[in-house]
């Protein structure tokens, strides 16, 4: 298969012929070819083509599923991939169904409820939006990461800007401005935003002492890039394992689900993370992502 030639021809076809051609490719491509398709997707240029090629590349993992069922092979990686894809698809479908309904409720509530801005309905709708945002993050961390060169400081700044209006303490960034690293920008944003959300929640709690700013620190070494999100809030009330397990028992949006999402995002990029107490108060979330070959 000459993939390059095929892609050139594909761009010249009418939309319905493109779909036919992509379907045929999905059915005939070997797993090895699908690996090449994944690489080609990253340089596809047009986003729709990239999306369609990634679908084909990822369809290999579904194929593996049937192989696993018929053989006794204990291929844990592929089982995980299949599971992740199923989780991601289900969450995606759920958001797709819920999104317009929530939008309509908001529109009608604004019209039908007096003093909507001060209403409990508005407050609960905002919370519902936050839950959906958490589900969006969850969905994303279940997908295969797409790596590219990231201007790290810019990505972190965007997340800090988003979160800072909800924070009662300052958020400082201590990351070299010219740091560029190959990462999944989407996963980096998710880790940083969840970590910041936790740090802000903790720092916003009322205490007698004056709290220090939240610090996002990061740098690269020869083999990895690392970050610490340091807060001066209440600190850890439970062990990390307990906090992680709480994803099943506490309300979404709380630290439990946030940490589970961080764990999945960091491990998707082959990294490690750790949550510990900060001296004298607060917590530190540390994570490190290895350099890609």
């Amino acid at each position, binding site marked *: 298969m000459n993939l390059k030639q095929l892609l050139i021809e594909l761009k010249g076809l009418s939309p319905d012929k493109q*779909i036919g051609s992509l379907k045929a490719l999905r059915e005939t491509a070997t797993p090895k070819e699908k690996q090449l398709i994944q690489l080609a997707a990253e340089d596809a240029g*047009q*986003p729709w083509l990239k*999306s369609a090629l990634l679908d084909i590349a990822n369809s290999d993992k579904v194929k593996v599923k049937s192989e696993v069922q018929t053989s006794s092979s204990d291929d844990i990686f592929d089982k995980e991939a299949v599971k992740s894809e199923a989780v991601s698809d289900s969450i995606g479908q759920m958001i*797709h169904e819920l999104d*317009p309904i929530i939008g*309509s409720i*908001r529109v009608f509530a*604004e019209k039908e409820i007096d003093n909507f801005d001060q209403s409990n309905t508005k407050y609960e709708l905002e919370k519902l939006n936050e839950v959906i945002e958490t589900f969006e993050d969850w969905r994303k961390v279940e997908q295969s990461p797409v790596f590219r060169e990231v201007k790290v400081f810019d990505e972190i700044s965007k997340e800090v800007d988003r979160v800072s209006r909800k924070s009662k303490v300052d958020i400082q960034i201590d990351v070299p401005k010219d740091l560029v690293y190959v990462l999944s920008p989407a996963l980096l944003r998710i880790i940083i935003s969840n970590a910041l959300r936790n740090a802000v929640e903790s720092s916003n709690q009322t205490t007698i002492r004056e709290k220090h700013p939240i610090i996002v620190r990061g740098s690269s070494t020869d083999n990895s890039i690392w970050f610490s999100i340091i807060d001066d809030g209440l600190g850890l009330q439970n062990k990390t394992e307990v906090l992680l397990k709480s994803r099943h028992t506490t309300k979404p949006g709380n630290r439990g689900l946030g940490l589970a999402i961080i764990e999945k995002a960091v491990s998707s990029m082959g990294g490690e993370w750790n949550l510990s107490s900060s001296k004298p108060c607060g917590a530190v979330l540390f994570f490190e992502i290895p350099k890609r070959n």
Partner: protein
Amino acid sequence: MKYLKGIKLNILHIEDEVEWFEKTVKPLLLDIGAKGIFHADSFDGATQILSENDIDYVVLDLAIPLNLENPVPDVSNGLRLASYIRTKYAGTPILILTGQQTEEAVEQFVEDQEPTTFWDGKRKSLVKVRPKRRVNEAISLLAEAVKELDAIDAIEIEETGCKLNCLEKRVIRIFCKENSAIAARVKTLNDGLSSSKVLQVSLIGLQGQELPWTSLVKIDTKQNIDKESNNFRDHVNKLPVASYPNILNEYVAGCADKKGICYRFATHYSSNYFSHLTSGEDSTLTILEKLKNILSTWSNNKAVEQVSVGAIRSLICPDHKFEKLTKIRQRLGLDEFEKKILNANYSIQHADLHGLNILVSEELHPIIIDYGDIKLAPSVLDIVTLELSPYFHPHLREHKAPEMELFENWFNNDNFLSMAPFPKVSKFLREWKAENYFLEREYVATVYAYAIRQLTYEGPNVEIAVKLIEKSVSTYK
């Protein structure tokens, strides 16, 4: 939410959940004063509406079907449509209203968009994304756009010698807005033969005063303006300073497939080459001497190419137009003639250097404009255009009706100069071309190509063009 009523904006919403569009979105769009609300539920439906209507703003769900035969909604169809709109209607703003905004490909698409000057005169991206759950925010964004469009529609434009359509006026209005002007006087600078509009624009400020600088705006398809902009950056700004105006900005927002590029003049101009040519040869000669000096930056970098007559002709008149000239091709055996091989000095040429594209300052300094055709071509092309455009350009065509004998003797230098209507200018141009060309054949082939192009325009001086073609073929032999 309360919005201004009675404002004009055509919105196309592509959404496959028809009930959601009808019950939730449409009433909100009516509320904000959208003039026309169009709805499509598939890729094909959307492209049809776009081709039949002037759409100011597109609201796009991504998970849409392709058409009736392919009814399964897919994000790639929405992205494909977004790319299609960016290519075909590059200025049309898109608001992606979807449940799939966190898809990697969507984020990448939005990130890849370059900001442009919007209706409020500020730089922003033409693509925005909002989740459907925040449809109220999306509508607020549209309401803002409606107000901005309404505000610039109030900018008055006085047209002289031209009739601008609504998209062309929008280019001028965004230019006004960005420069805090409340009105503009627009005068055509080209009554030429191309699709483009080349306009002298004077902006009028808040106190009713004309802003103290002159600008030129060229409006054409986005593709042509992008080419012009690249030509400026690659070639024009290598010419001596003050021989060209500087680019101020480019405008595309809400202009569908149209785009405008705006230049500002460092030196005030008062006339053009044609007006000097018809009023006196001495001033024209001064201008030409300066022009020759300016263009030497390009012509000094020439290289010999071995090419066919047809290759030269295709640079000046494309094959698909030439192919339609069946009668003359057969009568004069032009297909055979075009196979002949010659040497030619190739250098960068303006390739449309007629008299209206050379503005002239009070100090008789030429200022070259209109860069859409700049290319590597035979180094006598601009000189041939200067020689022949007075007989073909609509601006001067009717001015002098030269005897046919002049064209009969076009390639006989002595005879030609004895009967030329502008003898000093003609002598100058003939000497200039002899400095530039490889040998006479390059000049003959270029005159031939120029004359062929004249046959492809409506109502040119056919007789002159045919005579020049005949003489080119016979002289070349």
